């Protein structure tokens, strides 16, 4: 049976307690809201795009340890990346948290690999992906609130 520590890795707990880039970007050109109606998790993701690259990113809101740590580590992982690279990273991350596996090189995920334990806790997949879905919406300039349901 998967252990709790597979899910609640130290890095995840640390990010949930002290999330990075946990602030609004007031002059942000693009932002989106994400919401999980099942547990009430609620985040806003702000991005500034320079050309095609994510120049700055921040988030605000409340949620469980998994969703907050995932949002925090996502902001670190995508800063400086192009939109296409961010999308590719999300696809890899999504595969990891749903199946525990990745296509190709696991190193591409860097620190995000700590989320592999989520695949053993299927009801928590939506927690891990909420901020990513919200980021996609922000990048695509979608106006409506993103819901996991």
């Amino acid at each position, binding site marked *: 049976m998967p252990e*709790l520590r597979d899910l*609640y890795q130290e890095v995840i*707990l640390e990010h949930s*307690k002290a999330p990075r880039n946990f602030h609004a970007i007031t002059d942000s050109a693009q932002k989106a809201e994400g919401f999980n109606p099942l*547990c*009430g998790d609620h985040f806003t993701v702000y991005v500034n795009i320079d050309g095609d690259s994510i120049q700055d990113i921040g988030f605000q809101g409340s949620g469980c*340890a998994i969703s907050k740590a995932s949002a925090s580590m996502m902001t670190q992982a995508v800063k400086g990346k192009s939109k296409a690279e961010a999308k590719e990273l999300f696809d890899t991350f999504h595969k990891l948290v749903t199946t525990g596996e990745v296509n190709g090189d696991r190193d591409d995920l860097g620190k995000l690999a700590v989320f592999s334990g989520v695949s053993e806790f299927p009801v*928590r997949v939506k927690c891990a992906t909420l901020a990513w879905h919200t980021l996609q919406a922000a990048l695509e300039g979608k106006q409506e609130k993103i819901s996991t349901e």
Partner: protein
Amino acid sequence: MTTAAKIPSTGSSGHTRSNSALFDVEKIRRDFPILARDVRGKKLVYLDNAATSQKPRAVIDAITRYYEQENANIHRGVHFLSELATSKHDRARQAVRGFINAADVKELIFVRGTTEAINLVAQTYGRVNVASGDEVLISAMEHHSNIVPWQILCEEKGAKLRIAPINDAGELILDEFAKLLGPRTKMVAVAHVSNALGTVNPLAQIIELAHKKNIPVLVDGAQAVPHMKVDMQALDCDFYTLSSHKMFGPMGIGVLYGKAELLEAMPPYQGGGDMISSVTFEKTTYNKLPFKFEAGTPDVAGALGLGAAIDYLNAIGIDKIAKYEHELLIYATEKLSAFSGVRLIGTAKERAGVISFVIENVHPHDVGTILDREGIAIRTGHHCAQPIMDRFGIPATARASFAFYNTKEEVDALVNGIMKVQEVFA
């Protein structure tokens, strides 16, 4: 009329045994097959009874027996099985009547559950009696099922939904409620027991205040009926709703109680078979009560299962159940109150069945996952009562909810589980 738990704010109890003078809990647990199973390698500790209760063997057997030995459609056959099924269905309604002391079986409508019961009243009584500029008054602690049907009605009619506020303990502020009963108030709809907080509402006073102004009262009784004696004639409410699956019966069936004179005057809810006495293409005459509101083939097995659940509860005694759960709730309240970093949400003087709590710096969803690994089933989230979460300024709570088969040892397991949560997040 009601026997709700009076919760002391302080004090401690040295008891840790589940033995009770009221009944043999271990024997009762053996009546519920699911309680013997393991979950994730641990003994199941089922503390999610406000979501749905477990079913005793007697209920499971009644449903099985119906489909193996008694299945036929009711009310229209002259053959043996149809007569048998009809009389058993009638008997189940009689069991409900006795259990909640309604004056007559014609006042008891079988529906899918409390949600459908409230929608029925909103869409029949409400559509006839609520007009533009009128008001429907509910409380701030309602389940979504006692909010949304009235919102739909008010939107359709141009009426206004008014909300009676609650205090920081999660109790209805009766003075404010009384002030909101105005000349345009056409309906009051309140929970008997809050599913998210466990608060028991002062129904006698609510009903008296409303009736002084000739305003009818609907009571959502889903969370009350499994935990305490309810008496329709003593309460004098106009409508009362219950869900079988919360009271150890099967899912998919429940009951709307309505005073006969109100039900007689209401238009039907759905049209179809069984609810008519004669049909031509020009004119349909509706059936008498309760059948006027029961279009289509009913859930006969469900009714028989509900009847069996009531027989089972009667054999133990609902007053004993209320007393036992009161002890359990006091025990759990003391244990959880003593925890540093744990805050109870909903500390009403009168509560039943439910403890809602939050743990400092830990989201309820994480609490739920960690307890689940210990085999402990609780509910986390907004409990279909988002306005309550907004009232307390929290996104969600963890909720442990009890039934008479729960024990003090299970409360201790919950306490150990919470320690584990704090360990993980230390």
